[in-house]
C-alpha cells in the first residue's frame, strides 16, 4: 500500500493556489498524521509568504482482492448509472457509476433494477452503510448529514466526475 500523503493547499497574493505534500508511513494513525501535519505546517509557514489554506491526508486502499474487476470490450465510462439521494438536511448527494453493466438497467424505464442483487447492494451501502471493525460507516452529504434516501437511480450517458483520455 502506498504511504499516506499530506497535501497542503497554499494561496498567494493573487489568490492563486498550489499544493505541496509530504508522505508518512501507511501505518500511521489519524491522530499522529494530524500531529505531524500541524508541525510541518508550522515550519513551512515560517519559510513562505503565502497562506496555508487547508491540508488533507490521502490514504491508499488495497484493492488487490477485488473480484469481477475486469474491463469488457464494450466498456465505456461515459455510460453511467446516476444515483441521486437526499440527506436529512435536504442536500442532494449524487453518485455516478461509470460503465454500468447494462443488464442491471430496466430497458422499459431506463432505471436501475432494484431487484438485481448488485443494485440492491449498492442502495444498501448508501442508505444503511457498511459494517467495519468497531462500527458501521454510513455515507452522508458534504456537511456530514446522513440518512440518505434514494430519489432516483437511472442510466445516463455523460461525463462521470473527472474524466480524461487514458494512455
Amino acid at each position: 500500500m502506498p504511504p499516506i500523503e499530506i497535501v497542503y493547499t497554499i494561496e498567494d497574493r493573487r489568490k492563486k493556489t498550489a499544493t505541496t505534500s509530504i508522505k508518512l508511513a501507511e501505518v500511521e494513525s489519524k491522530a499522529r498524521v494530524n500531529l505531524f501535519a500541524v508541525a510541518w505546517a508550522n515550519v513551512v509557514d515560517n519559510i513562505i509568504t503565502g497562506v496555508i489554506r487547508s491540508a488533507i491526508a490521502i490514504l491508499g486502499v488495497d484493492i488487490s482482492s477485488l473480484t469481477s474487476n475486469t474491463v469488457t470490450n464494450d466498456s465505456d465510462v461515459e455510460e453511467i448509472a446516476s444515483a441521486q439521494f437526499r440527506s436529512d438536511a435536504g442536500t442532494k448527494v449524487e453518485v455516478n457509476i461509470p460503465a454500468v453493466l447494462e443488464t442491471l438497467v430496466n430497458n422499459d424505464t431506463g432505471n436501475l433494477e432494484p431487484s438485481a442483487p448488485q443494485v440492491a447492494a449498492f442502495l444498501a451501502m448508501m442508505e444503511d452503510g457498511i459494517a467495519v471493525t468497531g462500527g458501521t460507516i454510513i455515507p452522508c452529504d458534504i456537511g456530514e448529514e446522513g440518512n440518505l434516501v434514494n430519489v432516483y437511480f437511472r442510466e445516463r450517458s455523460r461525463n462521470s466526475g473527472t474524466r480524461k483520455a487514458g494512455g
Partner: protein
Amino acid sequence: MLAVSVIFSFRDAKGKESSTKIRVPSTFSFAQYREFAAAGAQVLANMSTAELYDVSVAVGLDLSGASLRTLATQFADVFQKALIVVRSSVAGLFSRINIPTFDDANTVDGSDVLDILDPDVQALITLLEDGLDDGGLLILPVDARGNDLDEVSQAVEKFRKS
C-alpha cells in the same frame, strides 16, 4: 469538519478514465475508512464493466493547532518555490518536495541555495530528516515507497508553474 471523501477511479476498454466519490463522516479511523473503501469498491466493481484501478480516501486535517499567517504578503507568488531533494534510506532513492510561495529571504545572499544556518530552514530540515517525537515514538517522513528520508541533498529556490 467536512465529510471524508472515498474516491473510486475506473478505466474503460478505450483507456478513458472516470472517478466517482462517496462521502462518509469524519469520525472514523484510517483503518475503518480503508475497510469501508475496500468493501465499497467491490459493490461498485460488481456494477461496472470498467476496471476499478484505484481507490483512495481524502481526510481533511485540522490545522487549528498551528500558528499560521492569515494574509499573504505582497510578494507571495505560487510560482516561487523551494525545491528540497531528500535522500531516502535506500541508496539511489530520493524524494522531491516543492514548497510554493517560498520566501527568498531564506536563501544565502547572492545565491538561490536555501540558507541552512537560518533557524527557520534548519527547523524544516530537522523535521524532514529526524521526524517528530510523539511521546517517544517518532513520526518519520518517507519516500513514495515508504522508506525513511535520511538527508537533504539539495535545497534551492526555483520558479516553476503550479
